[in-house]
């Protein structure tokens, strides 16, 4: 394997590293760049945040679940590179000192990189930009004061010209000598992937690595043959036609957000709370579907929108309803060598509400994720697509509830009339996120919330101010 990237402005070529070597371990152990910290080794604390730049812009990402091959052809800026070449401080660094934004200091480099990336991107929604960085000392208030104080300061000279044009990618990573670890496959087009995967059906496909990363860092799994999909530009497209919105499997949640903000704002609001900036910049829509998790947040929303999944094996394509993809826990309707190429759903009047219920608002996996798409004409329910995550072994539609309300006058009686149907649709489990009883109670309550929102009521604690 041989890959090249820029590290704090310097061209680096890496060879003879295992394909699953994480950027964090390589930075700390091989390069002795110890400013980037390991806090959790699973992408949940942000202490290892680095800035990755390419022709698509600058993104904050968690280095602990980034594998080196994913960085081929990119520019990496660590906290050491946020500081100027002669030790000059970046405005966010100065502000963090002035506003007492560090106490123990261990989370601070990750915050600095997130803040500097947001600063470079002109983002001032600091709560959202920093939701992926945990601090246990400060209570965050001084950090937000620092971010606010720095937001209008100019971008320092040493960060302005980051460009990846001068890196020549290592190209197709090549196997080294006989003792070298096997080189991963890094296709540039969907067609290449389709051909290769048909011949290597047991390979592990890695897009954002926000899930597969943990198989390596926590479970020490041997992934066997690997293909990294992040170099496939043509699988990342999101296209909006008169009739359909089609999302390439490689689109990240960050890519999806602005499109949904236009067409289905409540889906966008849920994406805002999906993982964190670092996770959304890595995680793909395809990955969120293909891993078959019962607690992924995008499948319930997409199912509620009536989405179709576009699967591909070699040159053969097949379309199925997304809800039919999920057969059982850990089991999907996907043949060996077949992969998710895209997901699409019809253009429609926006009636979608997405309710993500979790212990913490930001960066938490849903205990229950309920997505409701109910159409009403002349005060009567004419259609309903209701889908949930966290209520079964798969993302699942609430067919009985839908049937109970379709045709009914839209109101409290329809909601009450569906009471028993909920238990027919769902027999949820109890786990560390919530009990079965709570999950069922919440699911019922969310239909009430949907109704009240239709009537113009205030129903969301996030919208309330003191």
């Amino acid at each position, binding site marked *: 394997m041989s890959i090249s990237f820029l590290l704090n402005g310097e061209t680096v070529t890496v060879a003879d590293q295992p394909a699953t070597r994480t950027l964090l371990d390589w930075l700390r152990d091989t390069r002795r760049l110890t400013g980037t910290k390991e*806090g959790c080794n699973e992408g949940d604390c942000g202490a290892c945040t680095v800035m990755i730049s390419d022709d698509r812009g600058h993104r904050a990402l968690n280095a602990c679940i980034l594998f080196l091959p994913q960085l081929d052809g990119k520019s990496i800026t660590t906290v050491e590179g946020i500081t100027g070449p002669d030790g000059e401080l970046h405005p966010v660094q100065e502000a963090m000192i002035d506003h007492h934004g560090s106490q123990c*200091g261990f989370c601070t480099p990750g915050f600095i990189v997130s803040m500097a990336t947001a600063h470079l991107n002109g983002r001032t929604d600091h709560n959202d930009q920093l939701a992926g960085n945990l601090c246990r000392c400060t209570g965050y208030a001084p950090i937000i004061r620092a971010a606010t104080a720095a937001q209008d300061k100019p971008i320092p000279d040493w960060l302005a010209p980051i460009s990846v044009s001068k890196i020549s990618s290592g190209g197709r990573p090549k196997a080294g000598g006989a003792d070298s670890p096997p080189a991963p496959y890094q296709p540039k087009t969907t067609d290449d992937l389709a051909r290769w995967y048909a011949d290597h059906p047991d390979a592990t496909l890695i897009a954002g690595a926000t899930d597969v990363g943990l198989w390596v860092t926590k479970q020490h799994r041997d992934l066997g043959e690997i293909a990294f999909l992040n170099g496939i530009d043509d699988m990342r497209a999101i296209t909006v036609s008169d009739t359909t919105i089609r999302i390439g499997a490689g689109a990240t949640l960050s890519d999806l957000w602005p499109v949904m903000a236009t067409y289905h704002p409540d889906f966008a609001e849920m994406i805002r709370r999906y993982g964190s900036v670092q996770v959304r910049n890595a995680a793909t829509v395809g990955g969120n579907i293909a891993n078959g998790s019962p607690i992924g947040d995008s499948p319930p929303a997409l199912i509620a929108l009536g989405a179709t999944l576009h699967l591909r094996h070699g040159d053969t394509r097949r379309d199925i309803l997304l809800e039919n993809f999920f057969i059982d826990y850990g089991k999907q309707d996907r043949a060996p060598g077949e992969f998710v190429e895209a997901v699409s759903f019809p253009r429609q009047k926006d009636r979608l509400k997405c309710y993500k219920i979790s212990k913490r608002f930001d960066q938490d996996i849903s205990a229950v994720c309920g997505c409701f798409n109910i159409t009403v004409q002349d005060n009567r329910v004419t259609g309903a697509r209701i889908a949930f995550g966290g209520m079964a072994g798969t993302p699942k539609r609430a067919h009985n509830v839908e049937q109970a309300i379709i045709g009914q006058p839209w109101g409290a009686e329809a909601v009450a009339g569906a009471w028993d149907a909920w238990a027919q649709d769902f027999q949820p489990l109890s786990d560390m996120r919530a009990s079965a009883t709570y999950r069922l109670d919440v699911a019922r309550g969310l239909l009430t919330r949907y109704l009240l929102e239709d009537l113009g009521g205030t129903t*969301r604690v996030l919208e309330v101010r003191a």
Partner: protein
Amino acid sequence: MNNQRSPDPATKPLPHDAARLHVTGTARYVDDIPVPGDCLHLAFGLATVAHGQITALDLSAVRAAPGVIDVLTAADLPFANDVSPSIHDEELLASETVHYIGQPIFAVIANSHLAARKAATLGRIDYTERPAILTIDAALAANSRFEDGPRIYGKGDAEAAIAAAPHLLTGQIEIGGQEHFYLEGQAALALPQEGGDMVVHSSSQHPTEIQHKVAEALGIPMHGVRVEVRRMGGGFGGKESQGNALAVICAVAARRTGRACKMRYDRDDDFTITGKRHDFRITYRVGHDDAGRILGLEFVQYARCGWAQDLSLPVADRAMLHADNAYLLNHVRIESHRLKTNTQSATAFRGFGGPQGMVGIERVLDHLAHVVRRDPLEVRRLNFYAPASGDSVEGGLSAPPASGRPPEDILSKKKPGDGDLASRGATGDMAAEGDFEPGEDVQTTPYHMPVTDFILHEMVDRLVETSDYTARRAAVAAWNAEQPVLKKGIALTPVKFGISFTLTHLNQAGALVHVYQDGSIHMNHGGTEMGQGLFQKVAQVAAARFGVDVAAVKITATDTGKVPNTSATAASSGTDLNGMAVQAACDTIRDRMAEFLAGLHQAKPGTVVFSGGQVRVADARYDFAEAAALCYQNRVSLSATGFYATPDISWDRIAGRGRPFLYFAYGAAVTEVVIDTLTGENRILRADLLHDAGASLNPALDIGQIEGGYVQGAGWLTTEELVWDDAGRLRTHAPSTYKIPACSDRPEIFNVALWDQPNRAATVYRSKAVGEPPLMLGISALMALGHAVAACGTTYPALDAPATGEQVLRAVQRVQE
């Protein structure tokens, strides 16, 4: 000498001394220290059953794994197999019996961290399983406990007072534990030295404890072990005793291999292996009058201590010592059960039992207000201790002599406990001399200590005004009358927190100060830096004593070779103790310089002034550096140690009588919340905090402790839920499942102010300890949530903690029934 109020620069709001290193990523933590190229890495193999006898241990696959150099079991330990800070009940590696899921059984030594971690999962261990005791109820049923029976403190006759009272109120609250989630996990590095000596770098709040346990494990005197701690990436009590295992195994492995050995826990291992805050159940019986005045009160506190004693006894003691919080209880009985379970050994966590005890009494006041139908704040005020009277400052206007010592009888009566003398887990006899029955006009705590510095009346008055409490409470009621689904709540709760180690002999500190011939100053003391800004505050004291800029003072790593026999940096004591010790060392050097310079100019030493970077004597002025050089040339010693022992404290922890604390730190908070009655989702909307840091040594750092403490306390009581399954496995073992507050969880409106009146007790520059007390301001969030739930019905919500969405929804359903 002027030390009644803080002179410049001891009160400047300077940034943390390492702030520039933090923001540039150049601050070094244990895992960042450059190591020799052949450094080895360790990982523990862990028990997978909660209670059982090891019948077979097959480590062949571990030994054969790539990169593995050696594997150690209990049989390979040359000396003590013990990392307990108290009664030698905590094996480093389990030899026969395992007591919880996550207990270390063997240690892998490998050539990389990853190789060690991978190999550590390959052990094949057979057990004969035994019944595991996991819960408070199971422990009570089995009478599984530490100490022979419950500990009981009391005053007056609670039973008779409750019987005679017009009304009886009973209730119960469950209070969950809390994972520290220091961002830097536990870590240690051992570097073998010549002659069998060992240098250890540890992420520890208690270097002397590490030194002691390493020396025991290596079979050498403490002088053969030097422990260095420059900083921790957070501690919060979790690094008072929980770092012992890593440091000891690294030292043992370093001795065995002759190579540097390093260990750091992966986050999941850290959660699985180490102790957390004790969870508690507290029941109460209250006799009260129509107005809500408490006439008699009985508490039973049940603490789930986990498998080993660790620091659980003093934690449970402190819970009892805070069962009164701010309220006068004339007839009170507190019964405390310290229960032994097959779970992680619960340990120190910011507040050290105090927060749990305080939640108990705040719940009582809240419940009481509900049944007498009054604003809880009125009922709280009604039960407050009387205001402090007389002079605002005790003991004259100057700080005590830095060598102030406790009464001799305390030291002479001290017997070594069964454990490490320098640990809070030690249990020495502490029967105090003297009469602790104060005069009738003095109000006392349930442990008979007079309360003479009570300032909460004035503080609450001011906070009510600045937070606009009354109008906002009315606005909340109006909102709740209007809104069908979302309900608001608001609550004001006070904090009174006792300051001193309750193991009295720990209230001592040492310092070492050098002035170099160029006028630069090297400062060292026994306290450790975990982010709280201790080093900066103490450096400001040193700079003030010499009248120089704080930049002239070099802050150096805590080092058991420089200052010996240190106490843990714990109990909020860091600045109180070490600031005084450094002040004493500086004053010794300053007095020597003054005496010499005075002699040179035929002046009196007392007229020499150290200020503005200069030394003035008679008509002469020297730069401080000049003065230092002159002293050096004239053979004046410019190095000194300093020592401080807290005066006036003495108590009997068995009887629960005496003065365990030098003083109390106070605070009060108003929190407003909103809940969703359909899902239980809830959010803090606004918090107003007023906190007493005495005459603050550094207002910026103190406010940082207050803001951070509040958010950590609110997190404990809301989103931070620890869940064990029926097998005893901790299911919330990473940030993916255990949710500390994130950025947006802080109150959107967050007003924080310092009370900023001098401490009545003679502390360093009349400041007050500020590490732990603000955490308990977060209790206002729990009470506000209860208030919001109460708006949904007529019965009392009796909300348990943590008040997750699920708990809130359950409580809503209860009051709606």
